[in-house]
């Protein structure tokens, strides 16, 4: 599918993920035998074009972070290809990987735990620039740090502060500046605003959008807030239990979802308008999200699906292009 998508896209593919699988062996069984395999990511394909934002949504444990970590090669995939800027990076040596890694950065959910508490903001930003030999001259490095702070809406004097002397929103700005320091083309944003106050979230989202248009960045934007993902994404992939169940342009996905899980997710989002909520139809799913240790047979969503038929528990529905550029993995779509 990734080829077909890339063909139709006008833009050049910056990242192409195909057949991505990541399994974790988990111990804890009797006498130390492995208890099983967690199918964290179980056959995922997508492409991200240069300059675009692909949103990745789905509930806790469905494999979003693992997908992001595989893209960054922080996790070696069990199977699959990850082509970044034209090179398959899954087979690279550590040394070659180092060069590629500079071009892909990450912003984490928890800005506090991802910043070294014993370093000042200035040191946090200067260190990677020095270690990777981006700027050798200390005076020029300091200038670059000031420039980075300004880019993310902080002041030069913030360089002398420690992370605990900053608010949550300011820390997240430091996290973004640290990613920018490496001059990346791709940034994996893993729940970058979930830990922030509602009133601060919008500030950070606007900042990410400004930086994208100014620096031509490409984002893989992982989040569970469907309203935020709609705002920031060009296209959106919906994951359920290690698989992409729907992938489409933002408007198509939100206005005309084809997969029953996407429909359930959208109807579960409460809208901040009591009049609307009083009359809105809700689709409350039964049951819990199943375990990735023993995923259900056939379509992984079938035990909770309101429209499942016999076939759904027997055969795995492939991700099909139901309409141009609108993909869904459902027998009934």
């Amino acid at each position, binding site marked *: 599918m990734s080829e077909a998508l890339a063909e139709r896209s006008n833009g050049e593919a910056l990242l192409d993920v195909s057949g991505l699988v990541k399994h974790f062996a988990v111990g804890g069984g009797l006498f130390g035998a492995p208890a099983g395999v967690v199918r964290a990511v179980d056959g995922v394909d997508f492409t991200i074009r240069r300059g675009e934002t692909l949103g990745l949504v789905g509930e806790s444990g469905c494999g979003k972070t693992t997908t992001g970590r595989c893209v960054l090669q922080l996790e070696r995939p069990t199977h699959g290809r990850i082509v970044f800027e034209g090179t398959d990076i899954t087979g690279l040596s550590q040394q070659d990987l180092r060069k590629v890694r500079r071009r892909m950065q990450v912003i984490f959910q928890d800005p506090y735990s991802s910043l070294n508490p014993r370093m000042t903001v200035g040191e946090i930003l200067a260190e990677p620039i020095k270690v990777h030999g981006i700027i050798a001259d200390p005076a020029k490095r300091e200038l670059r740090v000031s420039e980075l702070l300004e880019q993310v809406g902080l002041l030069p004097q913030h360089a002398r502060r420690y992370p605990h002397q900053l608010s949550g929103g300011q820390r997240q700005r430091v996290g973004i500046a640290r990613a920018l320091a490496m001059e990346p083309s791709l940034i994996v944003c893993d729940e970058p605003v979930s830990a922030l106050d509602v009133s601060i979230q919008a500030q950070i989202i606007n900042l990410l959008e400004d930086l994208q248009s100014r620096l031509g960045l490409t984002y893989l934007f992982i989040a569970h807030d469907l*309203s935020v993902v709609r705002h920031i994404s060009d296209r959106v992939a919906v994951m359920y239990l290690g698989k992409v169940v729907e992938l489409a342009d933002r408007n198509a996905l939100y206005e005309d979802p084809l997969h029953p899980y996407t429909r359930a997710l959208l109807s579960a989002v409460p809208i901040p308008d009591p009049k609307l909520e009083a009359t809105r139809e809700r689709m*409350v799913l039964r049951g819990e999200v199943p375990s990735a240790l023993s995923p259900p047979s056939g379509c992984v969503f079938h035990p909770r699906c309101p429209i499942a038929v016999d076939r759904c528990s027997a055969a795995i529905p492939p991700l099909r292009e139901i309409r141009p550029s609108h993909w869904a993995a459902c027998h009934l779509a």
Partner: protein
Amino acid sequence: MATLLEVRDLKTTFQTAAGVVRAVDGVSWDVEEGETVALVGESGCGKSVSALSIMRLVAPPAGRIEGGRILFKGRDLLALSEPEMNAIRGCEIAMVFQEPMTSLNPVLTIGRQLTEGLEIHLNMKPAQAQARAVELLGLVGIADPERRLAQYPHHFSGGMRQRMMIAMALACNPSLILADEPTTALDVTIQAQILELMQSLSKRLGVAMLIITHNLGVVARYADRVNVMYAGRIIERATAAELYANPRHPYTLGLLRSVPRLDEPRRARLDPIEGQPPDLSRLPAGCAFAPRCSFRVARCEAQAPALAQAGPGGHVAACWESARLVTKAAA
């Protein structure tokens, strides 16, 4: 309907190295019988401390309720002895905490955690308590309850633990449940399951609820009335319908504007509230929101406004410039 809970001029502070934190700074609000009231506001504004103060669970010696009254069915909870308060806690007023794993005992079975309260508070015999425990688990939608009673909390998923917390809260037929971010840690589809369940139970059993959350969507769907808190004070209160249609405090307006909404066309840009939330140990003399407020006038920095009538149905707001928001909100 009669008033079940009346909080009057409640003040709760914490002594810290950085100074006195005025976590709850003279707030007053009510809950009517059977009603669902929401308490919203950003992190650190005093929502949890408000609920903990009602339960008299503010941790001493740093934390202290400095003043005010908490009238529950006409009795001032702050004047009760500790044994009297114990009889009310977990029985007439129950609390559902944000993180279920920290409030469930990991070494006791699900069954024991339910029956213990029933035996202590309601003097039930073990067999009777057991039967009630089965009934409670069924009530919150846990299948196969008899078998589940023998399991431990770590055998339950996050959603099931949250339901277990609700079952424990319902155990002694409380008339008020304080739910502190009851679904924040949960997935959206599970969140919808739990909130629908709480709403139907509250309707069916006539239990009043205080829902603490920062999710404006959850408030819109489930609350009858809303209290908006900022920096330890209530800055606006109205029925949910009135608050969303006609916000009269710039902070409420800012909150409603800053979130992207699925029911509206996508905006090119979000409209954030600029600046940072204040430090509660260094509050300004005037309105705490003034430094971030686009409606600010000279008076705001000098004098903190009190809650004043702002609309129908008991709508009040604490803003000198409240009248200017009427046209703004409509525009």
